[in-house]
């Protein structure tokens, strides 16, 4: 996609726009080119999977999209705001307000209940605890586990914990969820239900980026982007199923 297209997609309301992004670690002879010019956008309601072998740059891409790392060149925009123009405080605020993360190992705070885990980013953002709690329970209801709101992570199954993590990623006004191998620690049927959930949250208007090496999970995405050595080599866009397969 050209910069012009990216600008157009952004104007059309892309939640995430990555423009000509290069990320190089070190310099001179020891330079490692993690990303060598990536352009992509993710619109509301869209789930994009990024596939590639270890070292292809997919985790770097996710870190950059979440503002956890800065590109060597190029721009990253989250809901129209260019991350490179923000100071540390503004960036931290944007990360809290606009971006949610889902990790392989759930990353819930063990001393907090499900509802408290989900409410945490909102409280950090200055929302009153009563309102944060209300939002948290609503977010848990959206992932089908509001009845577990007062349980601690250790008393929940892996699948339930990951549902809490997805609720936390999308609580409040947040519309961008970045998922790094979110079902890696789950069995295949539970993992599938977590993917269905992530898919449903995107269908409901969130924008998702899923990093995985698992084709079965990537297949839930609208687009699958293939990275090799820091470059996008191909893309598989979902089309309507072939007639032979419809029933």
């Amino acid at each position, binding site marked *: 996609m050209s910069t012009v297209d990216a600008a157009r997609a952004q104007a059309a309301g892309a939640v995430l726009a990555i423009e000509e992004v290069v990320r190089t670690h070190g310099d001179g002879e020891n330079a*490692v080119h*993690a990303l060598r010019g990536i352009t992509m956008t993710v619109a509301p309601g869209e789930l994009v999977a990024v596939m590639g072998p270890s070292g292809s740059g997919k985790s*770097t891409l996710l870190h950059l999209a979440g503002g956890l790392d800065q590109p060597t060149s190029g721009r990253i925009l989250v809901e129209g705001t260019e991350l490179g123009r923000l100071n540390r405080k503004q960036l931290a605020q944007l990360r809290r307000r606009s971006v949610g993360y889902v990790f392989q190992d759930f990353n819930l705070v063990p001393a907090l209940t499900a509802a408290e885990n989900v409410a945490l980013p909102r409280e950090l953002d200055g929302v009153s605890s009563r309102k944060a709690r209300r939002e948290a329970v609503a977010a848990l209801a959206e992932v089908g586990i509001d009845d577990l709101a007062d349980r601690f992570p250790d008393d929940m199954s892996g699948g339930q914990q990951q549902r809490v993590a997805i609720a936390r990623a999308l609580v409040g006004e947040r519309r961008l969820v970045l998922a790094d191998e979110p079902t890696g620690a789950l069995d295949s049927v539970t993992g599938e239900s977590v993917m269905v959930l992530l898919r449903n949250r995107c269908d409901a208007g969130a924008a998702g980026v899923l990093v995985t090496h698992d*084709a079965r999970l990537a*297949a839930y995405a609208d687009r699958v982007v293939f990275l090799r*050595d820091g470059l996008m080599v191909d893309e598989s866009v*979902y089309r309507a199923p072939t007639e032979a397969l419809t029933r």
Partner: protein
Amino acid sequence: MSVRHGLLALLAEQPRYGYELRGEFESRTGATWPLNVGQVYTTLARLERDGCVTATPASESGQQYYEITAAGRAEVTAWFTTPVRRESRPRDELAIKLALAVGNDDIDITAVIQAQRTDSLRALQDYTRLKQQAGPPDATADVAWLLVLDAMVFQTEAEVRWLDHCESRLVQAARQRAPRGATTAPTRTSPQATR
């Protein structure tokens, strides 16, 4: 996949007539392996010749029902309990294609692999959508359809993993062939650097 065993399995449940067999087969397998009605009748004729089914006299509405015999039941049981041997499937064109591409300098094998991978991912995306459209698995036909879709999903996933593996192997082979210090080997960033 043998039509013979598919029809026998359906007849083991209850007597059925030709059109019904075709309809039932397609509803169970989601039309993954479409049958034409001619195939159904020639197969039924062979099953009757082999003593696996008997045809009952035509009903008033002209439908001829087929009933499974003890021999037919034994055959269908044997089919269900015998694992499908990989070598009984048709030759794997893709493996043959890649094997032949390895020795051909005019062919960019990485491109062959990527084209296949993109194609397989598209198929996976299709199957995944179909699974989501299938609805809750409460009816027998829906569960059967989901299992068939799952089979296609896992087979395709295995193919993609195998393609990933082929690519890694080729990168490794290229590195070993390249002289020490050469810059022509594919550049790879270290995983540690990106995490």
